[in-house]
């Protein structure tokens, strides 16, 4: 029988191995599910893990899906490390898109390509304003940031709805709730002709590097994390937990807003009420599966996108229901949390046939 007991210190090996073990268990359960549903498990796994990577077009599509998740999750990682629980990245994403759309709609026949920079900046500002409200209310009135940021998601969606149903509605759009399709000059430049992946990929890679440097190689980043982990110790050391609050929220809001701008001026090309597909919420899972580490988040965002796209392909290739995507995502998170137990604890073999030591069994 095994016994679970606390480790003297967290296991470094397990903290790296746990996501891999979790993935392995997820795949194993997935295989059983495929068999149970009467599908070829090899084919099923191939569709989920190989097909979304099979050629340049597929990889480009994976990038389109992963970039917003990656950007938002990176921001959230900083925020959570500052011990600020921003649940409202979805709202910040929407507001970034709204601000970016406003700039995009100002484009006229004579506008130059510089407008793309303005669109992206507007996205960052829009998202940061939305998270700034959370920071202000927390700072000034000690309002719970979880509730405030979550509620602002709904306010943001209503604001977007108001705009596309009202003042921003396309006059030639037969009253459909949508803006005009933005002029092509506002389009986020693509990496290659014929592929939808755009410079968002490069921005995301730069952001990964920048945040890694910020968190692990700068004094400010260190202050932020200490302020988050031990506010009292941080105060004693003269670090401001207020600045941790503001920096965490503004960075995560700005990143979410940037993702919104890239989406609305990239693959969308117009603002509609259907801009949000839950990236802001999914990114919370991505951030935690990626261990709140910039490099880890690269992998987790790719994995998450793999599940999304794989789920879609499984529908058209194997006739599996859409729910399969959610099952896989849920399984991964569940097994990861389970395996994480082994970082702080270990299993000890306590022998066989000694009932007095094995009450658990």
């Amino acid at each position, binding site marked *: 029988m095994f016994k679970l007991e606390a480790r003297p210190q967290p296991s470094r090996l397990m903290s790296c191995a746990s996501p891999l073990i979790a993935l392995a268990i997820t795949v194993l359960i997935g295989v059983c599910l495929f068999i149970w549903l009467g599908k*070829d498990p090899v084919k099923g796994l191939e569709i989920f893990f190989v097909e979304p990577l099979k050629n340049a077009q597929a990889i480009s599509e994976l990038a389109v899906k992963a970039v917003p998740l990656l950007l938002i999750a990176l921001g959230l990682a900083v925020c959570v490390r500052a011990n600020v629980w921003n649940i409202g990245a979805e709202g910040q994403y929407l507001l970034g898109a709204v601000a970016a759309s406003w700039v995009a709609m100002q484009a006229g026949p004579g506008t130059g390509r510089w407008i793309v920079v303005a669109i992206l900046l507007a996205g960052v500002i829009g998202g940061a304003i939305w998270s700034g409200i959370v920071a202000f209310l927390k700072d000034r009135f000690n309002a719970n940031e979880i509730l405030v940021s979550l509620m602002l998601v709904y306010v943001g969606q209503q604001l977007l709805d108001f705009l596309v149903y009202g003042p921003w509605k396309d006059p030639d759009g037969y*009253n459909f*709730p949508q803006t005009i399709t933005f002029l092509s000059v506002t389009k986020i430049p693509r990496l290659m002709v014929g592929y*939808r992946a755009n410079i968002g990929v490069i921005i995301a890679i730069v952001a990964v590097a920048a945040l890694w440097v910020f968190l692990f190689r700068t004094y400010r980043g260190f202050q932020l994390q200490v302020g988050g982990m031990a506010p009292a110790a941080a105060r004693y050391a003269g670090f401001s937990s207020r600045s941790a609050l503001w920096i965490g929220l503004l960075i995560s809001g700005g990143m979410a807003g940037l993702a919104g701008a890239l*989406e609305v001026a990239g693959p969308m090309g117009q603002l509609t009420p*259907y801009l949000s597909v839950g990236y802001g919420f999914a990114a919370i899972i991505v951030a935690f599966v990626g261990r709140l580490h910039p490099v880890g988040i690269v992998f987790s965002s790719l994995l998450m996108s793999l599940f999304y796209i794989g789920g*879609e392909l499984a529908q*058209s290739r194997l006739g599996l229901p859409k729910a399969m995507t959610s099952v896989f995502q849920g399984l991964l998170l569940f097994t990861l949390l389970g395996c994480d137990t082994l970082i702080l604890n270990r299993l000890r073999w306590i022998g066989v046939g000694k009932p007095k030591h094995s009450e658990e069994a």
Partner: protein
Amino acid sequence: MRPSRTSLLCKLVACTAVAATAFIGCDKKKEAPAEPAKPQAFKVAFAYVGPVGDGGWTFAHDNARKALEKELGDKIQTTFVEKVPEGADAERVFRDLASQGNTLIFGTTFGYMEPMLKAAADLKNVKFEHATGYKTAENLRTYDSRTYEGAYMAGVLAGGMTKTNTLGVVGSIPIPEVIRNINSFTLGAQSVNPRIKTKVVWVNAWFDPPKETEAAQSLLNQGVDVLMQNTDSSAVLQAAEKAGKYGIGWDSDMHAYGPKAHLASAVANWAPYYIKATKDAMEGKWTTGKAWWGVKEGAIDLVSISDKVPADLKAKVEKVKAGLKDGSHVIWQGPIQDNTGKEVLAKGKVADDEWLGGIKFFVKGVDAKVPGGK
């Protein structure tokens, strides 16, 4: 604790064995694609906005897909992807369906318009069919049902059954289609009862049962005694049932959701169009355009008329249906006034499809303002 351990081991072994046999089984299946090489099936794909089990819009489209399969048998092969969001994801789905060899692809919601246009611009050898949109391309055409004919027939029943002369509609999104349905419902009711007033509450969603219920309740509070809706769920009919008033089923036969309240269901049947479009594409006769099918083509019907409806009223509805079928009954024929008293269609003039497609006003008798209208 030995037994438990051995039993665990046994289970593990059993599991592995099962998995192994399944693998082998699959391999066997792979080895024997012994089906005689039949002629390449024509591949048709559908992208749905909702889950196929929504009981309304997507359900109706999927039923039509099944009818298409039944009609054309193994000459075709259909595929669908459900719950495709109306954002950046849709384009990927269309491109992927095309890469799978589907040469005819149906997109069943308005929000796919821009993604389909983008995909169609690159994939010239694929034919795209977009439901309820207004933009077309050389290889992208639109199709829709004249749902307003169903609304009109339902209106005839409602006008004959109401005691308060006040009808209510739960509206989804104030686009011309929905405004036209509310207008046609009112015109139908006025054809049997000129004193009719129609009240409207918007929910700004196609599927939101709690909001629909709330909207229905607020209409009932305003003295409405027959409810109609242009949303996808059965919530409004259920609210009518609970209040002891009348309701109308929409998109599919909803009789079972409110057996006492249900007057009739205005249903859309997409199968005739899907069969025709697929045959067009298979026979190389496919050309772009805008299809708008109604009672005449079998795309719209009023079904399950309640026993509570008196025989003479029933006869009136049947007469209208027959008239719509042979083209002798025209719903949108002047004189028609809007609800500010302005004449929008002169006496004797018949509205054409373009005019109908751009309706942004309510007809006389609708006690509401079009949101965002000028």
